[in-house]
């Protein structure tokens, strides 16, 4: 279990961000020093920059270590195994409260096309039946407004990245870098428990153990959480996604199969739609809802999650090779976003720097700009034939009912 905790420490954050450039990991990553941090417009202390720098160095050490186990070919370092990339629509609820009407949520009933990537958290590709953190990332497309991270370009996308646990087991970037220090030496428990110097973080250990041990019947079933807070308009929020109340999970796939999560999802989506409620939880005064302590679950009693958008996943096929390749190349970044939307806290700030470093590096290395999808097509075209992929059944209006 502790081994898992260690992997998760690696996987869930920095290397997760590195995923976009995972293929290039064998080469020397970009140095955060080369970035003009001031130009990013974040208030960030010297101490924090130092922590980020150190965590990246530890990350490289861990990567080197992990690669020796994994061997070729290179995969993503975190959430390595995608259980499926799905086409979806993301529509803002008609009754979204007024104070949430910002960024992609500005216009009630507005509908966007989106991609959803479900994944297992581990850096190793392993059977779905093995306990693991489960990830869900949504890429909303056709987003208008000024990007929140101009250095990423005008992507026209906004990404929501989640796992199926409401809390992270490091409070902030300083916890994180401390933890990394031990992980880099392959001391998996050391940060949580140590005799000398005396140290005990039982709650964080518990969260870590719980995070990496979940087993699910299908990726469509669990509730997913942002873990980290964001700012929407004037309101600090966490977000979460839960399957719609009328969903039924009655898959009969063999859960000992290596890729049963993909199979269960394919079975469900063969002739049925799926849907999720996208929900926001506002930070409220008088409750323990810190912005820079990711180990604290914000009380749902004090501030319940309120549905503000709906994710509709039409019945579809999603297991073609072309789509799987597309899925591997999809880059999910919490700093893809527009308008009054901002990732909060030191862990989020770290993500931004790391992402930027990686992006810069890859541009130089690959000489191939990273292209963000604009619609449901696998290639960057305006339109494509989806009739084989989306399984909707055309409705033929019947003759009006004759009166009696």
């Amino acid at each position, binding site marked *: 279990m502790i081994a898992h905790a260690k992997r998760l420490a690696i996987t869930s954050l920095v290397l997760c961000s590195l995923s976009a450039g995972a293929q290039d990991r064998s080469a020397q990553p970009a140095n955060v020093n080369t970035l003009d941090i001031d130009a990013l417009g974040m208030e960030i202390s010297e101490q924090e920059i130092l922590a980020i720098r150190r965590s990246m160095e530890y990350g490289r050490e861990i990567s080197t270590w992990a690669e020796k186990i994994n061997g070729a070919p290179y995969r993503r370092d975190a959430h390595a195994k995608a259980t499926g990339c799905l086409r979806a629509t993301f529509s*803002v609820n008609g009754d979204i409260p007024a104070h949430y009407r910002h960024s992609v949520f500005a216009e*009630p*009933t507005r509908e966007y096309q989106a991609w959803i990537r479900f994944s297992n958290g581990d850096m190793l590709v392993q059977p779905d039946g093995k306990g693991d953190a489960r990830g869900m990332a949504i890429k909303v497309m056709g987003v208008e407004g000024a990007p929140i991270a101009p250095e990423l370009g005008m992507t026209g996308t906004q990404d929501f990245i989640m796992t199926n646990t409401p809390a992270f087991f490091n409070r902030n970037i300083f916890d994180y870098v401390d933890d990394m220090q031990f992980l880099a030496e392959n001391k998996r428990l050391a940060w949580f428990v140590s005799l000398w110097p005396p140290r005990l973080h039982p709650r964080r250990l518990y969260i870590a153990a719980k995070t990496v041990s979940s087993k699910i019947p299908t990726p469509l079933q669990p509730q997913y959480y942002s873990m980290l807070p964001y700012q929407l308009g004037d309101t600090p929020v966490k977000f979460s996604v839960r399957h*719609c*109340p009328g969903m039924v999970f009655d898959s009969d796939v063999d859960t000992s199969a290596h890729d049963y999560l993909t199979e269960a999802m394919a079975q469900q989506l063969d002739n049925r739609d799926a*849907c999720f409620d996208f929900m926001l939880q506002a930070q409220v005064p008088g409750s323990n809802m810190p912005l820079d302590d990711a180990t604290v679950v914000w009380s749902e009693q004090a501030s319940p999650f309120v549905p503000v958008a709906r994710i509709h996943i039409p019945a579809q096929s999603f297991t073609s090779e072309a789509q799987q390749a597309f899925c591997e190349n999809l880059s999910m970044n919490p700093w893809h976003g527009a308008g009054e939307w901002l990732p909060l806290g030191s862990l989020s700030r770290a993500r931004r720097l790391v992402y930027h470093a990686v992006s810069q590096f890859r541009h130089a290395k690959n000489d191939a700009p990273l292209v963000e999808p604009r619609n449901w097509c696998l290639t960057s075209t305006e339109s494509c034939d989806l009739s084989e992929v989306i399984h909707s059944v055309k409705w033929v209006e019947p003759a009006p009912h004759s009166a009696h």
Partner: protein
Amino acid sequence: MLNRLRSWAGSIARWAGGILHAAWKLWTSIGPRWFRVLCVLVLVAVVAWHEAKVFLTPNLTQETIYSVRYLNDGWTPEERQSFYYTPQGTELLGIDYQWFLNLELPLSDEPLATAENLRGWGFIVAPGQRPDQLNPGNLPVGLGRHVDPKTGKERLDIGCATCHTGELHYKGTALRVDGGQAVQSMANAKRGEFITTLAASVFETLYNPFKWDRFATRVAGADEARRDELKKRFAGFADTIKHFVGGAGSPKNYPVEEGRGRVDAVGRIANVVFGYDIDEPGNYHPADAPASYPFIWDIWRFNWVQYTGFTNQAMARNVGESLGVLAPIKLVDAEGKALKGKDFGETVIDVDGLHCAEGLLRMLKPPQWPEDVLGEIDIARATAGKQLFAQHCQGCHGPHVKPPPEWPVADQQNPQIEGQISSNWQWDMAGEISEVDGKPVRRDWRADIWSIPWIPTEHIGTDPKLADNFMDNRYDASKLVPGSSPVNAGDGLQLLLNTLVPMLYERWDITGDAIPNYDGLNVPFRIANKRAYKSRPLHGVWATPPFLHNGSVPTIYDLLSTQEERPRSFYVGNREYDPQRLGYVTGKSPGSFFHDASILGNHNTGHLFTDVDAPGRIGPRLDEAQRYALLEYLKVMGNPAFTEALGGDAQDWAAYSQPPADEWNAKACNSSHLRHGITDMLPKGEEMSL
């Protein structure tokens, strides 16, 4: 080592023994044995009393309202009051009006029938409501009184309005929906609900001398003879409760909880009439298909009514309903043999009261969306919704305005109507008869009618239990019609009512012209047995949550959503309204009923707009913008005040025909009122003369 352990154990045992001994000494020092026994008994009694009190705590909603707004046009305040409190002859197992007013909550001296308690059980009481002649007890909407003609006693009467009046609450304003859907839980025999609390109170009043003393003093005063008579009658009432709970009212006959705002009306009518009234216990069937009380502001236009559209005539439907709501009737003697001749069908059903309510309803208009309370209408969105309604909804929901039918009738030569299990040609011929192709017909008096389609359950895919029960449950009616084979509820009612209604008319001296009027617009009584639900027109439907016949979908938004999106469970009982999604709030709250849609009878399937093949698919998936456009339109659909803004509205209710004049309606109201000593409702010039 072992020895040391032993000695430790020994000391601990001695120590514990010493403590016990001391405790016992302390206990015996309290007093003599009889006193200590008394102490124990008192303690047990206090604990038991407390537990019982918790057990009997009323299950009340907590709603705060400061003012009331009436949303429907069409009625004067007097007419509204008349609809609310005109009796129809129904009873709550024969409880006296004064008894009901004077009962206390169980294990308490707080009155039972307070505005707070009754509102908490879902009844409707206006803030600051005052008693008047029609409602001297200041009771909730629908709870009136009638005089039992035999004993002269005043009984509690459960009128049409009890179930067919709705209320939406929004931020302290109560929006009254006349002719709408009630959410009271009157029939629900669950702990803490109205009927169980009432029963507990009755039995405690009978057996607790202190409670009895308070009750009897209030009802009968100090006079011993009157108190003794009261005791006798009250004990008889308690026996009636026991008898009813052992049969037609037995909880085992109602396995699917009706909860708030629902009742298996047809199932209960059948159990009461064919089980209880004709004393045939074999006829009890589980009534496990609860249905919402339907809204009724436009039903007089329908050609066929009831959820399955099983009948066409107002009087027969209303008499059947009265019997189901326990209007006393004598059909069999003490031995359970059918009564003969004049003795058959002796009942307190108030035929005038029924016709009065029927006439009043013809004037009632659908509720109007109050923009100042619930929010302004987005005209552009509503106009888009109008197109969507025409495209996706109107095909079934119409209204399909058709010329008035000419109903073929039975006569002496052809005394049997085809397809009907029984005909009463004398009754048929008592209407206004015309001749078409040499055959007698009753020409419908309406200028036009709404022809409501029957949609087969397999097509619409909504919970089939109600229609299946109606078609498949069989009742032995051989006591009424010797030699007849078992029939379904519709046919059974026809067998009974073809005899009973004309007898009632005779007793009430309704003859000649009055008959087709009391029948309802010259319509002869027919039954249609179909495994189908009617797709009724939807004017004002926004004010009638929850939705589908079984109240299984909390909001219209959810009804326009796919199966995945519809909640599989929710709470109903709190009347706070959600003006966005058009329904009551659905969260858990005190007094609310948990609707579990996984139970047959509660299913929320069907009537689906979806892009996948599914049973009950009736259209393509609607996106969020389309759903909200439809919701916006439904808020004002047909409301003449918005027709112009919408660029015309095919559903404008001002364009529909007016009800034909019926002088008998006002007369019926007046004579019902007069019989109950109500003088302040007499015609005041123009108002009451229809």
